[in-house]
């Protein structure tokens, strides 16, 4: 019988290289390696920042020095040497880009490889996506700025926002994720270099998807971006971030902070398709992704996190919602895929403070190879959160006998009128299901794609249409030939 053997599988996986593994040869403007107060002053000066921001950085650095790296997550890795990282690396530019046409040729090629070239932008005009592109530490261009400006929407790099809208940044930055929040948030607050900033004025419904593309390029650099999204009263925005990094042997650190602020009656939909380099099949290299993402809801506001995570060697990430206002809603939809030696510890926190607040958690973990995939979630209902409700569903799918799926749900409830539901399942991908597909003439590869996408359907349905298709492909690619 000409059966697809495990050896062939292994061979296929070996040759299946990370699609986005390339480096761009652009001269860059760098800080010396290492971390101290001077480096922070250097970054701040490079960015021509106001004093209040430098003060925030220095204070964060002081706090960080007194903190220890968290160890409670179900991941094992060699801790980064924070003195061996370069904290600032900007592609050398002669001037600021006024339009995409001014962008450096090399960088244009990079963007083309990532599928967000100028041509792509033009094509995307129809589907309404504005893109901000962060390469290493600096944001290099934001499209559709003029069109958004007409509506009073601000969508720009974080550095530009600091220059052009300091009052908005100063008022909101750190209000959701305080400097002292955790080890990596403190580090980020001290050394963050760039990121995206978005402000939607009162009552405005943003007519297009806003999108940021992150890419780590320079070897030995860390990427510490800072994203701040503010949806003023009664406004709506849908925001998407995508991530890639080149293939490197050493582990690279990515420690971002994302803060979302949905004021009364506002809604923010934040979607992530994360495809950082996961390391090779032996677990060498890959990105350490230690990210703090959190949003706060005013009265009747809604924040919805959707994430499809297939990359990174180690992921440590809990997009959360603080449901402060009455009747506010928090949602978390997640697909996390781990293969080979990847490790993910991801989940969410839903903090119910207001009355009649509602949260929904749908988490789908898929483990393949020798990977470990953990869901960690906290549902916390405070004593004034009367009639609040939570529904959680955590499903784990195992593809091999050597991988692991772990679930750590925490529930704290201090209000007797609240209702909390938690459902969890763990299953192994069914040989019966695959055989059934094969018997209908469907190849094993397509069968796995079908089954896994079916399994994740509830989450994929939450993504904007054009990204859902991308995410589906990504899932199939990440798991190709991984049944054992």
């Amino acid at each position, binding site marked *: *019988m*000409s*059966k*697809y053997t495990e050896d062939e599988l292994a061979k296929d996986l070996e040759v299946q290289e990370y699609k986005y593994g390339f480096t761009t040869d652009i001269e860059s403007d760098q800080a010396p390696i290492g971390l101290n107060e001077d480096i922070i002053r250097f970054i701040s000066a490079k960015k021509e920042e106001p004093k209040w921001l430098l003060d925030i950085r220095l204070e964060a650095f002081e706090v960080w020095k007194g903190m220890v790296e968290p160890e409670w997550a179900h991941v094992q890795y060699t801790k980064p040497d924070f003195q061996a990282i370069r904290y600032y690396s900007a592609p050398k530019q002669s001037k600021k880009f006024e339009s995409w046409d001014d962008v450096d040729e090399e960088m244009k090629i990079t963007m083309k490889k990532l599928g967000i070239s100028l041509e792509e932008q033009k094509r995307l005009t129809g589907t309404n996506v504005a893109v901000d592109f962060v390469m290493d530490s600096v944001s290099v261009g934001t499209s559709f700025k003029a069109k958004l400006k007409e509506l009073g929407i601000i969508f720009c790099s974080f550095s530009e926002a600091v220059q052009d809208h300091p009052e908005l940044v100063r008022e909101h930055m750190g209000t959701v994720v305080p400097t002292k929040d955790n080890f990596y948030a403190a580090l980020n607050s001290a050394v963050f270099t760039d990121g995206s900033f978005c402000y939607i004025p009162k009552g405005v419904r943003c007519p297009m998807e806003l999108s940021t593309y992150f890419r780590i390029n320079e070897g030995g650099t860390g990427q510490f971006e800072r994203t701040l999204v503010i949806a003023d009263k009664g406004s709506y925005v849908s925001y998407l971030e995508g991530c890639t990094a080149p293939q490197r042997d050493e582990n690279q650190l990515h420690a971002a902070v994302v803060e979302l602020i949905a004021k009364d009656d506002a809604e923010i939909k934040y979607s992530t398709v994360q495809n950082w380099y996961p390391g090779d099949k032996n677990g060498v290299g890959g990105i350490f992704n230690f990210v703090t993402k959190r949003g706060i809801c005013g009265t009747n506001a809604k924040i919805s996190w959707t994430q499809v995570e297939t990359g990174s060697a180690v992921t440590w990430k809990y997009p959360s919602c603080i449901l402060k206002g009455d009747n506010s809603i928090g949602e978390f939809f997640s697909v996390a895929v781990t293969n080979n030696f990847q490790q993910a510890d991801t989940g969410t926190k839903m903090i119910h403070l207001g009355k009649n607040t509602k949260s929904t958690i749908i988490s789908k973990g898929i483990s393949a190879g020798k990977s470990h995939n953990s869901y960690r979630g906290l549902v916390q209902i405070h004593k004034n959160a009367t009639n609040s409700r939570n529904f959680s569903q955590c499903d784990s799918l195992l593809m091999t006998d050597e991988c692991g799926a772990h679930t750590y749900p925490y529930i704290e409830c201090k209000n007797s009128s609240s209702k909390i539901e938690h459902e969890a399942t763990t299953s192994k991908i*069914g040989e*019966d*299901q695959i*055989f*059934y*597909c*094969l*018997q*209908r*003439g*469907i*190849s*094993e590869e*397509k069968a796995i794609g*079908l*089954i896994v*996408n*079916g*399994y*994740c*359907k*509830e989450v994929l349905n939450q993504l904007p249409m054009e990204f859902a298709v991308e995410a589906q492909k990504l899932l199939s690619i990440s798991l190709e030939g991984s049944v054992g």
Partner: protein
Amino acid sequence: MIKINDLHAKIGEKEILKGLSLEVKAGEIHAIMGPNGAGKSTLASILAGREDYEVTAGQVDFQGEDLLELSTEDRAREGLFLAFQYPVEIPGVSNINFLRTAINEIREYNKEEPVSAKDFMAMVREKSALVELDSKLASRSVNEGFSGGEKKRNEIFQMAMLAPKLAILDETDSGLDIDALRIVANGVNKLRTSENATIVITHYQRLLDHIVPDFVHVLYDGKIVKTGGKELALELEEKGYDWIKAELAN
């Protein structure tokens, strides 16, 4: 169509098929009956290409090709269809998407263009009517939340959509009430042509009242021990299998 010669197969150390031979020609319907554990479902699984079984001897010729050399999916693409005794559920995957993927994979194998959405939907409407399957079921996830009867009807619906050369119905009648049995049997009869063939595996004669076989075989202890016309099924129904065992013992 298919010619099985002296087939031996085992699962683990246990030999299940012990020299089974059977030939089915185009246009024919064959029924395979036999007591529990005789190897009926094993035969279906081996022909379809399930890897749990090891074929230790024998040959299977399927339309001039060595069936045992083909992968599971290629057997299906060459026109072999198995209606499962226990169809699996595939949550989140619509029946329609599933079938369209299957049809297009088979078409690609035959170097044909993918089916157009319009033609496909017309086909779905036509074929689902054949087994009186609610068209809503066609949009639901594969077998998820289907009743036992709906699952079996869905198998025959898929068979109608894929138009196989050789269909093997593995105890398709089990768990069906009289009405569902009639519907499923009608579907199978309507799909019958002089170009295709069907092997019906069953415990009970009642299915054979609706799907009238050209030949009835008794499978016992890994071999076909008796072959006759449709009247053999009636005799088995009346006397059970013991007389065959007794005959063999002599």
